[in-house]
């Protein structure tokens, strides 16, 4: 009897435990976990490769190059004049130099590294410049017109088509340069991107820009990003202000040499010097 009772106890316990153990092995994922599991893995640090917007190489030579968007004649004439009068003589003041955001679409043409943080409701593109771009993938529509205003990054809504992130961006501030030649769009431009990981080390972004004010037709370019292959890739924010020795004076970029640095003072009295950053200039 004892043996039977013991056997019965085992069976009872097994009947209680086994279903639980089975559920633990293939426990149903939470809705949030399912949503994450369905997303592609774009982890890592990615570097822009040769590009239309931001050519690699020495700006002293490459500034002679230019992109060729399908500008309307008046825009082409203005861009050509800007290249001749400002860019080629080396007088161009790149807003990045003085701390402005990168701005769409230049965010997708990084001279430094970028990261894609892919979440179910949003994708963040983090730029080392530094800059941050938000792409909403939570199913929302664009806001009504009276809740939109021009911004450097615009307003981006995305959705997934299998492993491709399709993004539409509107409300981008006109006149924000797309590259070092000063190429610009109007504030009516719209960008449609198809971002996809095509192999373990390559992501591509096919960007079609429509600009009814500046362009005669849509302009499509493709950006490529290559994954850095270190085991522990390093990412750094590049502040424009930390040790800015190229101030812009009267529209011309200067260089602070050793003698000029002696003129950089603390904004406070000497005994309060620790409260100022090392390179903070006097106000």
């Amino acid at each position, binding site marked *: 009897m004892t043996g039977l009772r013991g056997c019965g106890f085992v069976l009872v316990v097994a009947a209680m435990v086994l279903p639980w153990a089975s559920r633990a092995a293939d426990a149903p994922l939470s809705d949030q976990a399912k949503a994450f599991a369905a997303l592609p893995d774009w982890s890592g640090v990615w570097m822009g490769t040769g590009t239309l917007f931001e050519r690699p190489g020495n700006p002293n*030579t490459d500034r002679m190059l230019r992109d060729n968007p399908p500008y309307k004649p008046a825009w082409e004439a203005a861009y050509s004049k800007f290249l001749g009068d400002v860019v080629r003589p*080396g007088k161009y003041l790149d807003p990045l130099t003085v701390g402005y955001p990168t701005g769409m679409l230049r965010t997708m043409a990084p001279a430094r590294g970028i990261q894609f943080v892919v979440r179910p409701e949003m994708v963040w593109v983090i730029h080392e410049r530094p800059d941050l771009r938000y792409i909403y993938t939570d199913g929302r529509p664009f806001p009504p017109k009276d809740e939109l205003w021009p911004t450097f990054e615009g307003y981006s809504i995305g959705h997934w088509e299998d492993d491709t992130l399709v993004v539409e961006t509107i409300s981008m501030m006109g006149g924000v340069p797309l590259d070092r030649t000063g190429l610009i769009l109007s504030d009516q431009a719209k960008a449609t991107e198809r971002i996809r990981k095509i192999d373990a080390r390559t992501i591509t972004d096919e960007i079609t820009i429509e600009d009814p004010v500046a362009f005669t037709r849509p302009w499509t370019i493709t950006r490529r990003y290559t994954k850095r292959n270190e085991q522990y890739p*390093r990412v750094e924010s590049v*502040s*424009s202000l930390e040790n800015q020795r*190229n101030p812009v004076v009267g529209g011309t970029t*200067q260089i*602070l040499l*050793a003698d000029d640095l002696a003129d950089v003072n603390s904004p406070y009295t000497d005994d309060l010097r620790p409260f100022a950053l090392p*390179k903070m200039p006097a106000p």
Partner: protein
Amino acid sequence: MVKLNVLLALGCAALGCATFAASPTAAHHTASMFAADKEIVLSGTVKQFQYTNPHSWIQVLVPGDAGAPVEWSIETQAPVVLLRAGIKPTSLQPGDKVTIKLHPLKDGGAGGEMVEVTKEDGSIISLRGPGPN
């Protein structure tokens, strides 16, 4: 700014004013203050390596014509770019004897844009690497 036109001219002549090949990365401010078509070579002693954003700077004391050393300011890239080229904050130390190849300032000031640095042990620091990726 200290004028060292004689030194610049000598360095330029010694190099034949070679045209510089494109560097792998580019500064975001206009580089029009640098003579991209000229290279000069300086020998001196590192005073300070400013491993800083948005650009790093090598402060080098170079023997001057009048006897007193002249402090040169040699601009190069942001730390993260240097690191990826294998150049670390410790790669240049105060007191290091170096030979620096640079694009000089057009106005003859004591500054320029780094091309490469050769240390006393023969090792070379440049944006071409070596470095990961």
